[in-house]
Every structure is written in structure tokens, then in C-alpha cells.
């Protein structure tokens, strides 16, 4: 009875278990408890939420191992953490800490502007961001076991997440409508491996779980993303940059489960206090747009 760890099925399967759930950014054990109590399926441990990274500037890196371990000790749900794009040593450190998922994230400052991490080389699974189908398939080809649409993190503006979900969904639908002999050119155009392109064309979906992220700040935002076909949502700054984090967190969890029931979303949206202030993505100068990192 050989027990095999780190298989594709175990890595992708972990993401399947998160479906229909909300993964919340937290910066300390106290916030992690609030997230767990609100019904989060996992927490993302990081030093600064994207809104603060944006406000404070500078190089954003992997979090302090001490902080990650305090969060691991505080909650029983899975704990994820972010590594810089291409920073495989940060990823090794996170793996050694026993984090349950690594987000190779454009929210941190990239360590490599050409290559991403070879994620097959790890036992811990990875989630990566994507703005379109080609990018998603390139990440899966490198071993990502879960994809999230990028959106524009730290803005509270859901428009980019919407755009990325429409783009990924639209490109999948287009592939499904092609003749088999047209898939070679489609793979070339998507800059993605032919085998993955063919798989998506046949199944009509990504081969891994697709979450959405970036700019989600309200229960209705979360429900909007679910109705666009997301398997679940990441909420970063939206919760702990709002007036009443515990209540907003629970409300977003409810709206994610009952995304197709406007009455539940209405109830969940009542009396939540102030949402995060937010920035319109259109007002952000191009060098400050995080979604454009990654290739």
C-alpha cells in the first residue's frame, strides 16, 4: 500500500474541496479567527492586504514565517500564503512551513519577469492568477492546480475581475465551437499547449478549479462572480478594510452560497456599515496595475 503525496489528483482535489467557498486575506491570527468564524473555507496569510501594498508602495514579499505559523496555530481551516512570481525559494520556505496552498501572486513584486515557478517540482499545490485563457493554461502547464482570475487587487473595483471572468469564459466557449482541425491554430493564438487546448475544447471547462479575485468588496460582488461561473471567490482587502469585518465576512459567505437568490443577497447586504473606500481601476496609472504582472 504505497502512499503517494503531491499527485495531480491530490493537488487539484484540494481545490475541489474549496468550491462554493470564500478565501479571505488575513494579516494576523485575530483576523484569521474572525474569518474562520464567519465561515471562510481557507485564509490567505499575508503581511499587508493589497490595498496597503498599493498605498505604501515598495517591494512586497513573502510574509514573515512567524506570522504564518501564528495563523496556522490559530485556525483549523486551510492556510494559504503568497510567494512572488518566479521566487521558487520563497515557495520552498512556504512549503517547509506546511502551508496548504501557495499563491504565486502578482500582488507581490515579481522576482522573475520571464519565468514562473516550476510548480510540478513541489508537493504543495499552487494557485496562480490569469486574465485570459492562454495565461491560465500556461500556468496549468507549469503545474498550477487551481486558477483565479486576477481582477485588480486592492481596489474594491470589481470591473477587472468581471472582465477577466468574461474573457476566460468567452474563450472557453469559443474553443468548444471550433472544429478539431482548427484547434492547432487556436493553441498558437492562445500561446498555450495543444493538449490542454484540446482538453478544454472537449470538456468546455478548465481542467482545474477556477476562483475569482481582485476588487470584490460586497456580498453582491461575490454573487456576481459566482453567476459568471466562478467556483468560489478570494476576498482580499474588501473585508478587513471595511467598517465591520466580521459581519461583512459572514455576509459574503452567505451570498457566495446563495448567489442565485437575490433575497438572500439582499438580507446579507443589510446594515453592513461602510464598505472599503476603493479606487476606480480606470484612475490607476498603468505601472500601478497589478493584473498586468505575469505573462
Amino acid at each position: 500500500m504505497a502512499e503517494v503525496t503531491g499527485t495531480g489528483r491530490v493537488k487539484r482535489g484540494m481545490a475541489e474541496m474549496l468550491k462554493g467557498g470564500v478565501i479571505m486575506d488575513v494579516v494576523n491570527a485575530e483576523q484569521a479567527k474572525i474569518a474562520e468564524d464567519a465561515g471562510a473555507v481557507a485564509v490567505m496569510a499575508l503581511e499587508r492586504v493589497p490595498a496597503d501594498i498599493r498605498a505604501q508602495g515598495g517591494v512586497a514579499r513573502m510574509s514573515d514565517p512567524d506570522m504564518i505559523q501564528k495563523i496556522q496555530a490559530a485556525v483549523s481551516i486551510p492556510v494559504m500564503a503568497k510567494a512572488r512570481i518566479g521566487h521558487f525559494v520563497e515557495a520552498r520556505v512556504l512549503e517547509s512551513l506546511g502551508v496548504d496552498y501557495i499563491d504565486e501572486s502578482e500582488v507581490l513584486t515579481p522576482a522573475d519577469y520571464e519565468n514562473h515557478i516550476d510548480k510540478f517540482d513541489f508537493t504543495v499545490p499552487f494557485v496562480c492568477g490569469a486574465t485570459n485563457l492562454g495565461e491560465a493554461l500556461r500556468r496549468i502547464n507549469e503545474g498550477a492546480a487551481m486558477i483565479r482570475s486576477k481582477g485588480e487587487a486592492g481596489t474594491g473595483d470589481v470591473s477587472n475581475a468581471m472582465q477577466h471572468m468574461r474573457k476566460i469564459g468567452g474563450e472557453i466557449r469559443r474553443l468548444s465551437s471550433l472544429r478539431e482541425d482548427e484547434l492547432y491554430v487556436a493553441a498558437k493564438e492562445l500561446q498555450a499547449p495543444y493538449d490542454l487546448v484540446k482538453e478544454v475544447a472537449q470538456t468546455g471547462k478548465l481542467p482545474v478549479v477556477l476562483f475569482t479575485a481582485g476588487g470584490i468588496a460586497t456580498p453582491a460582488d461575490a454573487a456576481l462572480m459566482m453567476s459568471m461561473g466562478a467556483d468560489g471567490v478570494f476576498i482580499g482587502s474588501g473585508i478587513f478594510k471595511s467598517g465591520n469585518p466580521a459581519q461583512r465576512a459572514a455576509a459574503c459567505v452567505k451570498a457566495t452560497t446563495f448567489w442565485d437568490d437575490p433575497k438572500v443577497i439582499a438580507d446579507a447586504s443589510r446594515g453592513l456599515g461602510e464598505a472599503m473606500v476603493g479606487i476606480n481601476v480606470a484612475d490607476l496609472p498603468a505601472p500601478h496595475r497589478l493584473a498586468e504582472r505575469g505573462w
Partner: protein
Amino acid sequence: MKVGVLALQGDVREHISSLIACGVDAVPVRRESEIQSIDALVIPGGESTTIAQLSEVFGIYDLLRERIASGTPVYGSCAGMILLAAEILDAKVGQKSFGGLDISVRRNAFGRQVDSFESDIEFADGSQELIRAVFIRAPWVEKVGNEVQVLASINSHPVAVRSHTALATSFHPELTGDHRIHRYFIEHVARPALEKVK
């Protein structure tokens, strides 16, 4: 037979596919009326704390508990096993279960995600063939009551157990495309239990 898959969170779709492959009518259930209309219930893999909490928030916790207690056939995988346990070890403070199986279950007993694994194991359904079992941050059973039968173990920790009306596995048969466990639930747990009621 109409089987409901509790659809608050988790890998609902995979269980529905496996059940349909076994020839039963399978539907996602979240609301009171939906739960009342089913003959048998499946609790999927997912996050046990989230599923328990959502069942309370949406007012179906008591109904689920009552239906399971009154003998509605039920199968739970991973988080589902935790939610069927009479006692949860390493639980979140105040974490509730629906009960239904006289077992003590330890959450994340096999470790964190880096320890998640797959393995070929024996399953006591009369077949000699091994079954591919996928364990993801999986629980194991530490104590079983008199009425509970152990169907599979790893290193002497029970990972599949049953009573007259309930089945639970630490692993995820819904992820492998092998429908043997679901068929076992339908043919050897649910059908006999439902026929007895008739």
C-alpha cells in the same frame, strides 16, 4: 431513489456525477423543501466548519439532524464524515455536527495538505480488488460504537465505516471516477434501509 447532495459548499458536482453513474436521481439540496423531498442524503467533501455554519445560518441544521437521526440513509466523504460523527476531535471551538454515526473523528488527522496522499486500499464490500483512495487533509476515526462496522483502515486507523443507515469515508471516491463506494452506498446501505421502512 432520489438522492440529495448537500450543496452548501464543497465538491457537490463530483458526487452528483458519481450518483448519476450509479443510476439514481441525484440533485443538489440547500433548502428545507428540497431536503424534505429526498430519499437519501450525501454530504460532500469540503470544509466541515463552513458547511456546519451555513446549515445553521440557513435554518436547515435541525432538519438535517432530525432526518439523519430518523434513519434517512446518508453517506459522507471527508468533511461529510466529520459532520456525521457523534464526536469531533481537534474541532474548531463550538463546531457542530449532524451526528448519526456513533464514531469519534479526528479532523486533519493525516496532517496538512503536503501530507495529503493517495493509496490503494482494501474495502470490505466482498470484492478482492483494491480501491484507489484519495485523502485530502483527511480525518480518521478514533473510536467506533457497537453498532458501527469498520470497512477500511490505514495503519489501523479506520477510514471507512458504516452503521445500518449511514456510511462515511475519510477519502474521496468522487474524485477518482470509480463509483464502487457510491454503488455500495446505494445498493447496500440506502436501498435496504428504505425497503425496511416500506
